[in-house]
């Protein structure tokens, strides 16, 4: 087989051309000429400066607000004493396990529901219902059932992720054009083959959308869960923040919050975005 020029370079070039066209106009603040990394970091610098300025002007008591430098100091201390790295690892592990379980349960569930048009229609309202009752709302009930345990935190994450994942997997299957299935039938494909060759790959972009939503919701539910249950369930980043509050150390609270945001940005950049970009190249016509 002849291997033609890589498809990614073709799309890459197109994107490059679009970017080039965009950067020709100078823009209001003249930031167009800067590299994308600097452009992305700039607002953070502005935010930190603003924070610093507010702190310097108002000169609030240390219990209310501390300087960026002081928060950075708390951050370094927390890393040095080992609590923060351990808690970060624990939270990420919980999220990872939650993700795997939600994919394992939610994707097949969504696919099965999506296969039959009538079943999918019947299932949609209740799926929306459970989607709307957020994971955190389940926390009291979970505590009654499972106590202040790891199980409670994990159950809340899995629940929170399961419905967006399942719902989008179902929608993904339903929105695949019927002619793809028909075309495969004329080529002699049976039901299993059609599930494998059409429904599974065809719903993949939608499954990823669900996963992205699910991980976002799950991350929030996780922090909330750790606020409430973390003390007895072995900590976590949420526990770290909440515990700092009980100690009355605002610097640690803010350091924990910043870690929370930075971790999400890293997960987004390093894991979710690359997967989505691969999908856009391969499934371009589906999502376009």
């Amino acid at each position, binding site marked *: *087989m002849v291997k033609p020029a890589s498809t990614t370079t073709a799309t890459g070039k197109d994107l490059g051309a679009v970017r080039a066209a965009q950067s020709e106009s100078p823009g209001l603040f003249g930031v167009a000429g800067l590299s994308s990394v600097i452009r992305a970091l700039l607002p953070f610098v502005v935010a930190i400066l603003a924070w610093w300025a507010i702190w310097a002007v108002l000169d609030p008591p240390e219990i209310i607000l501390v300087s960026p430098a002081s928060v950075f100091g708390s951050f370094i201390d927390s890393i040095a004493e080992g609590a923060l790295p351990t808690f970060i690892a624990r939270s990420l592990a919980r999220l990872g396990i939650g993700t795997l379980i939600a994919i394992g349960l939610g994707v097949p569930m969504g696919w099965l529901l999506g296969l039959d048009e009538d079943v999918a229609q019947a299932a949609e309202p209740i799926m929306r219902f459970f989607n709307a009752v957020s994971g955190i709302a389940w926390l009291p009930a979970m505590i009654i059932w499972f106590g202040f345990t790891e199980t409670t935190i994990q159950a809340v994450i899995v629940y929170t992720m399961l419905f967006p994942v399942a719902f989008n997997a179902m929608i993904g299957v339903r929105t695949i054009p019927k002619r793809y299935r028909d*075309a495969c*039938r004329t080529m002699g494909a049976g039901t299993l083959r059609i599930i494998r060759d059409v429904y599974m790959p065809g719903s993949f972009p939608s499954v990823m959308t669900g996963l992205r939503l699910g991980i976002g919701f799950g991350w929030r539910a996780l922090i909330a869960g750790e606020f409430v249950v973390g003390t007895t369930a072995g900590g976590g980043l949420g526990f770290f923040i909440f515990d700092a509050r009980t100690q009355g150390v605002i610097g640690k609270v803010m350091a924990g919050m910043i870690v929370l945001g930075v971790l999400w940005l890293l997960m987004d950049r390093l894991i979710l975005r690359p997967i989505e970009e691969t999908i856009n190249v391969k499934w371009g016509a589906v999502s376009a």
Partner: protein
Amino acid sequence: MTVPTGGAAQAAPPTISVEGLSHSFTDPQTRKTVHALDDVNLEILPGDFVTVVGPSGCGKTTLLNILAGFIRPSAGKAFVNGRAIERPGADRGVVFQELAILPWRTVYRNIAHGLEIQGVAKPEIDERVNRMTSLVGLEGFEGHYPHQLSGGMRQRVAVARTWVSDPEIILMDEPFAAVDAMTRLTLQEELNDLTVRTGKTVFFITHSVEEAVFLGDRVMALSARPGRIKEEVHVPVPRAERSWERMSHDEALQDTVEHVLSLVRGEAVEPTGQDG
């Protein structure tokens, strides 16, 4: 008959035969009964290229869907090689009106798909796909995804995917309706070339009289809904000798176009329901 090989071929049983076919269905939106086809009879012999032309909504697509096995007719029967059509099968390849190649498969993997389903061995798939891509001018694009191709190229993939499995008959439903006019002329000539070279039996639906005459051995002119065959018109010039160049000045071909036009013209189109 237009089959050029004489006695033996004349006696060959029809690949497809349709007897007294009628079809009605309930329109899901208006809940009214739609009479799509009325007492359609036709025979398609091996190697025949039959085109069906008629106004929008005359039941052309319904007829194709019955032959493909997607729907069962209300009355009458359709046969492939003497067996009643009950479901889709690999003996009848379909090129759809709307593009039905899979967007997440490369050109190569789209064309290979039917062969994969049939369990053909890898080396043979490779050989057949390569032969097909060069036949339809897709060399060098094997690794591209459909969204990276022009409309004309995508249609070539759709045609190649159906052709490569070598089905006995190919059903085509206005495959070139969505491409631009210039590309369409090229694709029509290429299709003519391909069918002449491979001797495929083709059932081709269109609403363009010129396309129907240009491609077909025989043109079936359908009436407005409920569709019935008004006349079966033989196209005088052998397919191997056709080109758009020739179409523009050959009087026999021009007359055929005029004649088919006169059959189709004035067939009022019901404003309700979907394209049939």
